[in-house]
């Protein structure tokens, strides 16, 4: 689950990670009031679930109250486009109004904690080159990124935090507070069951104080059950309505840009493989709907409804390998949905596995105009043709 910057910072303060003072504003009036409370200058920061906000014009310095008013007016309700949002951008619904720290002589560094999949353990990453996209640093100067692997049973040890700080040149009186910052951030990562905790820039002011100037925290969805207090931080307005609807029925829906074939598949790997084979056949998937391992007829109906709500869909490809999910259950669900929704676009069904013959019989008996296919390649070719040919 993604969080807004202001939420991430709020969580970090629980673990003693220093952040600039700030308040979250939902209106122009609130923005002005909070600026007055914090004192000028302030930074007005658009809160959306995407990076690249600075370059996209979503982070603005206000030296006067007129500036605060103008920035809040221009950002609230506007569509902010960054390199991570796609061309459609995201509507800004809230602003973080934050004290404007003195950046003269400050150092902008980078720190993050995540799980290193290859090692299966947490890793603390840090770099003296903060304030820029870390992916760019990783490509242009990989040596500039420090990695400290952490034993999950011992946690990040103070000497490890000091080792990282020293490599960043943070010695003398800076060593203890730098290590303290890293240790607190690491403990926040573990306590929150985060998937990613990133502070960029990790600011060191000329006065020798450390701050999380920007913060990004992603929570592990699988761990939310033991963090009921964090569940309410979810901002569904940042998520696609169909994806939210799918999740309600234990379905996984992902919208893809530029395609016209709706895909209903069971299992993430098979879903990706189905997308791949559609592309090989010269077509393009409009979405990806994974009904999971053991869907029932009701879930299949909801899945169809969600697929058909996508206006880009010109044909539907159902590719199911029945294991626990039986082909007869699938066929019943597909027939019921096609009738109930009066589906007008062509539907290509390819199903294999448990109760395959019964499933085929149900499709035939329905007298609906399903196209069937024996293997994935044939199914993809038929779906591409039904959607209007290769593009």
């Amino acid at each position, binding site marked *: 689950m993604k969080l807004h910057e202001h939420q991430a910072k709020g969580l970090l303060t629980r673990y003693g990670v220093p952040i600039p003072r700030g308040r979250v504003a939902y209106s122009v009036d609130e923005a002005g009031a909070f600026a007055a409370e914090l004192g000028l200058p302030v930074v007005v920061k658009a809160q959306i679930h995407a990076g690249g906000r600075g370059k996209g014009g979503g982070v603005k310095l206000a030296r006067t109250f007129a500036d605060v008013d103008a920035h809040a007016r221009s950002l609230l309700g506007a569509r902010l486009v960054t390199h*991570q949002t796609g061309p459609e951008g995201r509507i800004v619904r809230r602003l973080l109004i934050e004290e404007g720290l003195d950046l003269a002589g400050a150092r902008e560094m980078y720190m993050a904690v995540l*799980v290193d*999949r*290859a090692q*299966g*353990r*947490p890793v603390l990453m840090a770099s003296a080159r903060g304030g820029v996209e*870390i*992916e760019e640093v*990783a*490509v242009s100067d990989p040596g500039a990124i420090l990695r400290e692997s952490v*034993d*999950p*049973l011992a946690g990040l040890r103070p000497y490890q935090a000091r080792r990282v700080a020293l490599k960043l040149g943070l010695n003398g009186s800076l060593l203890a507070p730098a290590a303290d910052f890293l240790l607190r951030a690491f403990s926040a990562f*573990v306590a929150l*069951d985060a*998937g990613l905790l990133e502070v960029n820039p990790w600011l060191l002011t000329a006065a020798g104080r450390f701050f999380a100037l920007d913060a990004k925290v992603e929570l*592990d*969805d*699988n*761990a939310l*059950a*033991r963090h009921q207090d964090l569940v309410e931080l979810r901002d569904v307005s940042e998520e696609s309505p169909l994806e939210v609807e799918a999740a309600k029925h234990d379905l*996984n829906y*992902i919208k*893809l*840009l530029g395609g016209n074939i709706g895909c209903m*598949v*069971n*299992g*993430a*790997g*098979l*879903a*990706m*493989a*189905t*997308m*791949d*084979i*559609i*592309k*090989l056949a010269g077509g393009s*998937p409009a979405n*990806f709907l*994974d009904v999971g*391992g053991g869907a029932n007829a009701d879930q299949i109906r909801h899945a169809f409804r969600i697929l058909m709500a996508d206006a880009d869909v010109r044909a539907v490809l159902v590719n*199911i*390998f*029945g*294991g*626990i999910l039986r082909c007869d259950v699938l066929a019943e669900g597909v027939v019921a949905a096609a009738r109930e929704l009066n589906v007008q676009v062509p539907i290509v069904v390819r199903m*294999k*596995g*448990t109760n395959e013959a019964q499933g085929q019989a149900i499709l035939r008996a329905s007298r609906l105009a399903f196209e069937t296919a024996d*293997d*994935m*390649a044939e199914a993809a070719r038929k779906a591409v043709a039904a959607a209007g040919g290769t593009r």
Partner: protein
Amino acid sequence: MSVLIDERTRVVVQGMGRHGAYHAVACREYGTQIVAGTTPGKGGTAVEGIPIFDSVEQAVRATGANASLIFVPPAAAADAILEAADAGLCVVVCITEGIPTLDMVRVKALLASRATRLIGPNCPGIIAPGVRCKIGIMPAAIHLPGPVGVVSRSGTLTYEAVAQLSALGLGQSTCVGIGGDPVAGTSHREALEMFEADEQTQAVVLIGEIGGTAEEEAAEFMRQHVRKPVVAFIAGQTAPAGRRMGHAGAIVAGGKGTAREKMAALSAAGATIVESPAAIGAEVARRIGRRAG
């Protein structure tokens, strides 16, 4: 021979709820020796003729179980894995989907000093058709005994590959579903190592997907240690960057973990790459034929 499991494998099923009991029976019908089940608090009862114990330790003492199959819900699954390891089981297959990643990180660290081999979590399990032993939820009927080892992160995509192989008369030595989570007990590399050492296995199907570097590590191992033909497919060639494609692990992030990189690494290590998931079986037939000829 198969890898990981054989006719001596005796399985305790952890989590004998509706789901667990259903699959325990399906495994038994296939031929697997399902000797016990555990549900804390239900010790002394029986489900479908399978004796239930309060703990894995008790089940092992009473039945000589040496492997386990876990259906315990996500919040308690990490504990179930550790309980199985503590009871000295050799092979632990965890089907459970949705275990918190940091739980698995701790489990992996705790298992490092033990001989227990964990398969999964979030996987379909293992099946060895030649010895009619399955510890998992895969549809048994699509499998045939034979010379092909299959290792995959995905469930249904593995079934797809197996069905293609069986349709061509190419049976399987063992199919190992390693699961779609970012932190798993067994990697592609480790499965390759087992297949390379297994006499029955003559060729390997490696099914990977976008995200992480497990396929690249398998390629690195392959280059130095694998003589058997490997046919590889990577799912997610057309997936957009930054989107998690269903599996918690399947995401192209920061320009890393793309299908292109994985296919290039495996190809450079000598694997035959199939771009179409419909061509896996035919390609194995071609490779084995060429080898035999």
